[in-house]
């Protein structure tokens, strides 16, 4: 209920639509409900008294009512669709705005997969639920209640039949629906298992073939498949039991109507037309009951969706998003870490422990260490993707948190480990680094990133359209564009997070050479797993389990004959100290 309250503001602009739609539905339902009563009157007064005018006028009345019902129904459909579509579109808009402003750690916590599901599935399911509520959920109970009232007024003597039939119907539907819910959950689990099996056999096809596990996998699939078949059968069998049972109950109700009605007609208490009308109302009651319970079931499924939407909307953003109004000053790029600690889980182990170092502009700092030593985390703190738990980070002597994030980030060229590119042209992707870059700036950046050689070979050159996930480029090409994107902004601080792994040795050397020549003034933080990428760093930091294990120049570190030296040897360095 709280969730409904929190999503209500999105319905508010359309509250008149949402209010009128059910009202119109009431009119449509009333028009429907009156039909059998008029029919009864035609039979009992018109035919019985041979009154032709009565028959004709009442028939015309029926037609008029049908038309009114049609008009009301159509307008109701228009209004409720409008309300539901606008409601969900607005929610989607706010959600996306929120998601765009989430910080990295917000995103980590919520999970990108989860966010995508909320944006795509959950919004749709809430929209459908609202649409249903405005139309069917009003119609069903109205038909149901309206018929009962009319029967109570016009055919009180047959009312006991309703008292018996309706509760039985209720019980049947309730029993089957609750039971079926459980069974269908099982079906869903089996479906997931079958899908996982297929999916992983497609993705792991080479592994299966290499180990000759085809028949093993077929047997595994057989288990999943037959459990799906069994689950499906028991669920569907139960559901298909409902129809005949309900038919049976209602039909027996009808037989009882004929029987009891017959007795009463004989006693002169009612006319034959009442029986006919009553049978019609019995059908309508059943209709209303069935449709509202089915729809109710669908609507309850939307509740978890609404909750998920709400929890994203309520997420507290821990690092403010970029504010485009900020004035952007050119930073020098002096960077210093003072006793910085960081932990992703906030209660578990620290990923970074007591990190302190200084980098002046124009310097190149190399960072090396094994996987999981905290190198990437360190890099991400510089751009404020995360804020440190302890210690402080300064740029040009000013604490990071004192900058507007946009100002800070626009001075940093960050090349992440994974070269994420977006659907659009190459030009557009590089231009992400600098909005109004001239074409010569774009070409220069591509050139420094050694991307020109492949771009020039493409038919559309810089206008070459990238597919989703840039699947039409190779890993090395993607990395080059990602590098160009950071280069184009001529940043004060350049962070390179192991971003040259897919480049061949020659291109990597070229890129590093350009880095030295073209970004002489910038502070360069370069993270690498190969010592060869760091040879010319002014200062090298060796990370181990979140701590700085050793630091110094290449030569100094070799002299320590410790961790760095081991890596050096492992990577093919000669067992002699380089000449000093």
């Amino acid at each position, binding site marked *: 209920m709280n969730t409904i309250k929190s999503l209500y503001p999105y319905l508010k602009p359309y509250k008149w639509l949402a209010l009128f739609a059910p009202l119109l539905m009431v009119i449509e339902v009333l028009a429907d409900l009156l039909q059998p009563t008029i029919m009864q009157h035609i039979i009992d007064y*018109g035919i019985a008294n041979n009154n032709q005018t009565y028959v004709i006028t009442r028939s015309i009345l029926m*037609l008029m009512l049908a038309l009114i019902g049609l008009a009301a129904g159509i307008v109701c459909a228009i209004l409720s669709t409008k309300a539901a579509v606008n409601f969900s579109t607005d929610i989607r808009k706010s959600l996306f705005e929120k998601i765009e402003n989430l910080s990295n750690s917000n995103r980590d916590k919520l999970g990108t997969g989860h966010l*995508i599901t909320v944006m*795509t599935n959950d919004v749709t399911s809430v929209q459908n639920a609202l649409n249903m509520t405005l139309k069917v959920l009003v119609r069903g109970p109205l038909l149901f209640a309206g018929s009962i009232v009319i029967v109570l007024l016009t055919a009180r003597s047959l009312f006991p039949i309703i008292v018996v039939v309706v509760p039985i119907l209720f019980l049947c539907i309730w029993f089957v629906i609750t039971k079926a819910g459980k069974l269908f959950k099982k079906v869903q689990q089996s479906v997931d298992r079958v899908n996982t099996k297929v999916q992983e056999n497609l993705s792991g096809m080479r592994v299966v073939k290499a180990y000759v596990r085809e028949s093993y996998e077929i047997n595994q699939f057989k288990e999943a498949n037959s459990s799906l078949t069994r689950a499906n059968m028991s669920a569907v069998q139960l559901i298909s039991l409902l129809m005949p049972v309900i038919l049976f109950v209602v039909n027996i109700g009808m037989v009882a109507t004929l029987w009891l009605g017959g007795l009463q007609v004989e006693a002169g208490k009612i006319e034959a037309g009442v029986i006919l009308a009553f049978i019609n109302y019995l059908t309508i009651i059943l209709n209303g009951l069935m449709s509202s319970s*089915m729809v109710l079931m669908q609507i309850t499924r939307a509740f978890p969706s609404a909750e998920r939407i709400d929890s994203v909307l309520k997420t507290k953003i821990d690092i403010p998003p970029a504010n485009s109004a900020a004035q952007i000053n050119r930073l020098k790029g002096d960077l210093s870490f003072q006793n910085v600690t960081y932990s992703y889980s906030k209660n578990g182990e620290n990923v970074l422990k007591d990190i302190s170092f200084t980098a002046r502009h124009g310097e190149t700092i190399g960072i090396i260490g094994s996987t999981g030593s905290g190198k990437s985390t360190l890099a991400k703190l510089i751009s404020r993707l995360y804020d440190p738990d302890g210690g402080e980070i300064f740029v040009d002597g000013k604490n990071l948190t004192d900058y507007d994030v946009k100002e800070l980030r626009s001075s940093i060229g960050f090349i992440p480990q994974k070269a994420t590119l977006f659907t659009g042209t190459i030009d557009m992707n590089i231009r992400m680094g600098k909005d109004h870059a001239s074409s010569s700036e774009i070409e220069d950046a591509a050139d420094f990133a050694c991307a020109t050689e492949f771009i020039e070979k493409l038919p559309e050159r810089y206008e070459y359209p990238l597919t989703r996930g840039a699947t039409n480029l190779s890993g090395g090409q993607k990395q080059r564009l990602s590098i160009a994107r950071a280069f184009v902004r001529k940043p004060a601080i350049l962070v390179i997070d192991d971003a040259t792994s897919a480049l061949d040795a020659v291109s990597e050397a070229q890129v590093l050479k350009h880095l030295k020549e073209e970004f002489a003034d910038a502070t360069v933080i370069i993270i690498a797993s190969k010592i060869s990428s760091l040879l010319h760093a002014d200062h090298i930091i060796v990370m181990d389990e979140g701590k700085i294990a050793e630091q110094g120049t290449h030569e100094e570190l070799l002299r320590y004959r410790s961790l760095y030296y081991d890596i050096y040897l492992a990577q093919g360095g000669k067992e002699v100290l380089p000449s000093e």
Partner: protein
Amino acid sequence: MNNQGKNQMSSIRGPRGMMKGPVVKPKNAKKTLYRIWSYMGKRKPPLAAAIILVIVTSLLNLLGPYLIGVIIDEHIIPKDISGTIRMSLILAGIYITTSLLTWLQTYLMVNVSFTTIGMLRQDLFAKLQTLSLRFFDKRAHGELMSRVTNDIDNLNNALSQSVIQALSSILSLVGITIAMFSLNWILAIITLIVIPLMVIIVRQILKRSSENFVKRQKDLGELNGFVEEAISGGEVVTLFSKEKDFLTVFNERNEQLRSSATKAETFSGFLGPVTNFINNLGLALVIGAGAFMAVQGSVTVGMIASFVNYSRQFSRPISQMANLVNTILSAIAGAERVFAIMDEQPDVTNKPNALSVTKFAGDVAFENVSFGYNDEKMILKDVTLTAKKGEMVALVGPTGSGKTTIINLLTRFYDISNGDIKIDGRSISDYNIHDLRNRIGIVLQDTYLFSGTIADNIRFGRLDASDEEVKSAAKMANAHSFIKHLPQQYNTVISAGGGNLSEGQKQLLSIARAMLSDCDILILDEATSNIDTKTEIDIQRGMSNLLKGKTSFVIAHRLKTIENADQILVLKDGQIIEEGNHRELLEKQGFYHKLYTQQFTI
């Protein structure tokens, strides 16, 4: 009023699942139907029984309204109590029978269709396992997934519901028409007047809304694609302060969706009130005309009652027909796609008298092998190499030079177009494929792991391995040290693809998997690319025991790891340009020397 039960289901209003965009028509419906029919095999008798039951229940459904009319006219209005009771009992009997038979009919049909579908799914999966990699290269996984899921589900729905519904709809339409005309032809014609109206209007609405639904579906797809990209690339968006720009694009597309969704859903929303109106119109016509004729004495009250009920029964099949036909057509089209896969011929197969082997000595030879994944581009050009029993052969060269292709050919993932590959002096195509692959252990570049426990995944290398053996393989692969920190250690469940493990950990597991397998030839394709140098050295120590006496092929980026190889083959553009051991190649001062020195200098 007999059939109203089914009426309920269809009278639920609101956005229903009927608009699925355009219907794909099957190419050869007759042939496909015949194949589905033959697939039913042993389940034909229950299917036939179900069809007979459909006919019987449809007939019984006609009897109800007729009898109600008779009871009113001949027993209630003449105030004949004993007759009313007698006829009511008969009617009750008919209703009970109808319910029982309806249940039996769906029970049979559900059983038949689900077992058939289960078998079809199983066969399709088994078929996929026999197909060669070339087949999968040509098709997107998503597309194959949708064969196994959507297409089969559609067929299931059609079999278990739509076919029966369509059949009973047609039967009731014909039956009701006959019954009405035999009761009173004038009223029958009046009842039928609304039918063409109904057909035309429903068709128009469906046409309009499906046009709009196509547009909405397109807009929604584009929007969702954009959202997915923006969210998964969130870090980069943040880094480059592009939040506002992404929001602008999003809003544009969201507004587009707002207008197309409104149009599509409004049109489909009309379906409910319009069919409702036509029903009411029909009712008013029948009652008006019936009453008019009753006043003149040519029609009885009971007959009006019968016609009212018949006209109600009439509307359901009509409004459902279009939908049913679409469901059935797309199910057949889906079945066609499923059968197309079933008919695929695997291109890598055993020869008629394929040799079965339990052990290889391990002599491997490539003789003038040329190969391309497609006709346009040759990946390997005239490659010749020999690896003697127990030798370690390293393959080096830039990306795209054909290293992995050599491995793909040795394991017969693909068959060669020219030349010959021999193991122990016989062409590999002479051996039974499964025996061949069984004797070759391989750590692939893609370290795919399956959903299940860590132990399950290692045991994939040898199914009958004991827990101890699994553990020692993990230790040799240096995987034990991280496994022991996992919450359930070897019983920790990982998701498909190994999602919750790092690339490096996945590689360690796939090495352990290979270490467990008992083989004569071992292939390591970039097996340690994501493992840091120190761990890599430890693994190599563990592996040296394993490699003893086995012929091995190693592909590695870091040349340090292959310095001790007996032979180093340098590949470039699909050709072997240099060969020899580390020392010889360095002395040559050629391409290998260049590669080697480059990795250490700037």
